């Protein structure tokens, strides 16, 4: 266990070095947040029927998405892992007497936590001071906030399990551009980054509830704004837990199978 925690620390501390990139990221996220929100402001001003969420709820949801993007997004591929596979560095990894899966898992989670640590505070602080309609609202209640934190933690574990899963597939296919990119794009949409899940057509909401993606960030953020009841929150966290276990197990098994067949590239 200690070895894995060292991996985590190593990645966490080294990722904290990229402060310039973090500032650039913050600026980008502010801009995207404003753009997304302005679209909704314009839509809400034009009126609609049976809207699933209030405007302030949507705004808060979108800001949370931007603030924690570095933690929960699915589109950052850990280039280091893909490089290992494509350029043969994996042979060094295999020489280490540790479980490769968990080495990777702790690396990825360390990087994500470091990236979000550098970014989320300025966003939360500034947006909560903004005037309406761009204001980041307070959580629905103290319990909702507690549940939000819990499910965000679980969401992080889940998204990490997913991000580690993709390079394992790549061990066999050698090219992540086809299938993996496709899955990531679908996952991106279904995680509610641009359009919160309640705005989806009915049939898609049902399909989405059977997939893991919306449990990464949509669940915690909707808990925060109070769009989801606490009872459903408990239910949702159980589902998160099941997906985490499932993907870690699946990842481990697939890793064992693929490692036997892996061809080391380059020299």
């Amino acid at each position, binding site marked *: 266990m200690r070895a894995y925690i060292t991996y985590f620390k190593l990645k966490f501390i080294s990722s904290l070095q990229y402060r310039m990139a973090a500032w650039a*990221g913050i600026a*980008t996220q502010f801009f995207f947040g404003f753009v997304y929100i*302005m679209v909704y402001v314009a*839509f809400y001003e*034009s*009126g609609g029927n049976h809207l699933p969420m209030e405007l302030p709820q949507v705004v808060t949801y979108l800001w949370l998405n931007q603030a924690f993007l570095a933690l929960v997004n699915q589109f950052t591929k850990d280039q280091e892992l893909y490089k290992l596979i494509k350029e043969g560095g994996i042979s060094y990894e295999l020489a280490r007497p540790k479980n490769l899966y968990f080495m990777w898992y702790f690396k990825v989670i360390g990087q994500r936590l470091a990236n979000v640590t550098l970014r989320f505070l300025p966003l939360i602080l500034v947006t909560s001071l903004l005037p309406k309609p761009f204001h980041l609202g307070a959580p629905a209640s103290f319990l909702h906030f507690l549940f939000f934190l819990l499910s965000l933690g679980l969401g992080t574990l889940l998204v990490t399990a997913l991000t580690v899963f993709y390079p394992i597939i790549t061990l066999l296919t050698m090219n992540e551009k086809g299938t993996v990119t496709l899955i990531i794009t679908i996952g991106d949409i279904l995680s509610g980054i641009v359009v919160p899940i309640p705005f989806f*057509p009915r049939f898609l909401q049902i399909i989405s509830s059977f997939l893991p993606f919306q449990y990464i960030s949509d669940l915690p953020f909707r808990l925060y704004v109070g769009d989801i009841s606490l009872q459903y929150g408990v239910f949702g966290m159980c589902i998160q837990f099941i997906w985490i276990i499932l993907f870690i197990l699946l990842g481990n098994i697939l890793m064992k199978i693929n490692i036997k067949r892996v061809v080391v590239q380059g020299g």
Partner: protein
Amino acid sequence: MKIYFKSLAMHLKGELEYRVDFILSFLSQILVFFTYYFIIIALFTKFEHIKGFTLYEVLLCFSIIQFGFSFNEVFARGIDKFDDLIIQGNFDRLLLRPRNIILQVLCSNSDFVKVSRLIQALIIMFIATIHLSIDWNITRVITLLLMLLSSCIIFFGIFLMAAAYCFFTIQGLEVRNVFTDGGKHMAQYPIGVFQKGFVYFFTFVIPYAFVNYYPLLYFLGKKDSLFYAFSPLLVLLYLIPCIIIFYWGMKRYTSVGS
């Protein structure tokens, strides 16, 4: 110009060497890209219009922006991926040759898989115009063509600026996404629906409004002034500062070695 087409042909041949890979990526691009249109359609099931613009009007607007963006991804990929040239030190080689530098950068790369997005944009545009019952006449046709043209030009300008930015930072930081992806995301809706400050910014600093708002108003018959119809031509002016900035940045360029 001949050199450019020759290098395009070479890139195409190169990509077609991996035929199965090419076809698969082509198909997956179409699928992936449909999701963007899907987002707009999904929102319009809950809302009837956005500041007076209906679903098909927004789709028309988006397809025009998408067309310009993908056009540059295919034919100006070298500028889009300019940071690669700088980081790997390959830019130095280009500087040695006695040809126009921008032309050479254009020749350095291209991505024909993205043609799928071009086709898709044209299909969506076609569907949208059918549903809109446009009062066709010759100026409307010209306006539409001008919109497509200006959409290509504005993204070319933005890509050039982003490339110039690489001269200073070496790395292509996330900030450039603000102007490429962020701008694209904004401009999928007619710029006029946004708040005042942003509208001014995207009229006078980066003139998206002349691509997808003023001419659109004329095209849809919401405004009659011919100024609106030909306003996309103003985007041409925007190229001038972009090119100047690029050359200015190039003067300060110091090689990173290879």
